[in-house]
């Protein structure tokens, strides 16, 4: 079992406190929801974990090893996947090619091997192609694998983005508003997929989401942030009923 620890993390942008000494830990196999009104610091917290934002004080650790000093690519290679709110794909490449990008670190061949497409490089490419094929099947995207991503609907693009993270053999997945812009059917499918991944590979997940029905369905635990501070933590029903959380959402009631 692996453990992702957020230890007393604060972030200051100029004079503004985006996060104030937030601490919690997530184990593999757990699904944790981060909730809070806009500007509460949820995305900043995910950015701290993925190495995009350096904490002003405090640190993040994976199994006791410090993550917060590493650049984003190194954090990702440690097994921490990140899916952004808006999928950032290569629009002129096909769905399949976009997924192949995520197999980057499962391949080891160098420039010369690639230039000449030596047998070793070809073998690794074929292995990656097979992995992508089975993922496409699982995501129900096999039929559109050859289409350019710019021609695909938003829901498909979000699935491809998630698929990329899954191809990286990650232990933790950070999801930033994964269901924004999806229809009910897609939302249900995505929820099933996340639960299945937890079951199969004991993936640890941190979800930032505004849809309370979705987080209540998936998460074992919720952490509520307001103005950069953790104001409540616990089981979903408990946190959503917490008076501070209710107050933070006043005028912006959590949609049940």
């Amino acid at each position: 079992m692996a453990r992702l620890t957020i230890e007393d993390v604060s972030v200051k942008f100029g004079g503004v406190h985006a996060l104030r000494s937030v601490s919690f830990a997530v184990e593999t196999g757990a699904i944790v929801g981060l909730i809070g009104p806009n500007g509460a610091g949820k995305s900043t917290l995910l950015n701290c974990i993925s190495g995009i934002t350096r904490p002003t004080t405090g640190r993040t650790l994976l199994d006791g090893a410090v993550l917060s000093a590493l650049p984003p690519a190194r954090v990702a290679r440690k097994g921490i996947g990140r899916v952004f709110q808006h999928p950032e794909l290569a629009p002129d490449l096909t769905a399949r090619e976009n997924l192949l990008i995520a197999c980057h670190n499962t391949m080891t061949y160098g420039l010369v091997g690639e230039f000449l497409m030596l047998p070793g490089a070809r073998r690794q490419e074929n292995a990656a192609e097979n992995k992508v094929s089975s993922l496409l099947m699982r995501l129900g995207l096999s039929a559109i694998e050859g289409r350019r991503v710019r021609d695909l609907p938003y829901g498909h693009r979000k699935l491809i983005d998630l698929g990329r993270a899954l191809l990286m053999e990650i232990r933790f997945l950070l999801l930033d508003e994964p269901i924004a812009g999806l229809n009910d059917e897609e939302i249900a499918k995505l929820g099933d997929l996340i639960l299945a991944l937890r079951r199969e590979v004991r993936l640890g997940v941190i979800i930032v989401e505004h849809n309370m029905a979705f987080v209540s369905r998936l998460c074992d635990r919720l952490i509520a942030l307001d103005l950069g501070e953790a104001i409540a933590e616990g089981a979903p029903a408990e946190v959503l009923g917490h008076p501070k959380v209710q107050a933070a959402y006043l005028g912006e009631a959590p949609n049940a």
Partner: protein
Amino acid sequence: MNVRLGACAVVTLALAVAAPYLLNAYGVYLVTLTGIFALVALGLNFLVGYAGQISLCHAAFFGVGAYATALLTEKAGVPYVLSLLVAGLFTTIVSTLVAVPALRLRSLYLAIATLGFGVVLQKIIFEWRSLTGGGGGMQLAPPSVAGHPLTATGLYELTVALLAIGLYGAHNLSRGRTGRALRIIKESETAAGALGISAARYKIAAFAISAFYAAVAGGLFAYLVGYINPESFNVGLSISFLSMVVIGGLGAIGGSIVGAIFYVLVPELLRGFNNDAPGLVFGALLVAVMVFMPRGLWGMGLRLTRRA
């Protein structure tokens, strides 16, 4: 589709083999020059088209390759073809020294920095008189390949062979992990980072690949013209290389070839029609291509054939 592609390949091969027998000496020179420039453009396309970076120092890499090849062949007695490879690797190392600091910069700032590097490299060649002959340049005798002095036809054939290898390599690189990594870096460095791909590392790789192509092409160029001096490898040539890639079509391997053909042959053809102002007409053509074909000649060609 594959039949058509095969037919194209056969026709191209036949033309390539027959060319030296169909053309006069000047024609062979022009076709060889086109091949050399195509090689530069193929490499530069990785940096500009795939990685979205800009460089104004590739004429200098072309020059370093030319001088390194000439020095290895003439002064160290290394076989010509081996010199080309060694010069290519040497220039690749030089280019990474340029790339590491240049990586901190973007767009216009990067352009100006690479412009500076180009001038510095050119100046080093100029001032290192004991090695390079300085401003007087180097006069080069045809190198011997397999015991015979290399003829114009031989150089043409070597260029075609290297271009073929370069095309094969570029095809593989563009579809392999490097090409994919560069495309996502161009789209979003944040997304690349989240996928465990280091943008810095791959931008350096793109610099290195493009410098290798430029250097090998430079080594061919040295013996095509038989005389090199530092003045030849100036910023104007760097801009020409950049234009070839853009005119042909960014991010398309075929575009680099088409861009080089356009750049070498169109001014020649224009000279036949109008001896006074080939530059003027050529310039106007460049503007027209950019205005009406934003994806370059290659992109335009693809659109037309798809519609057909």
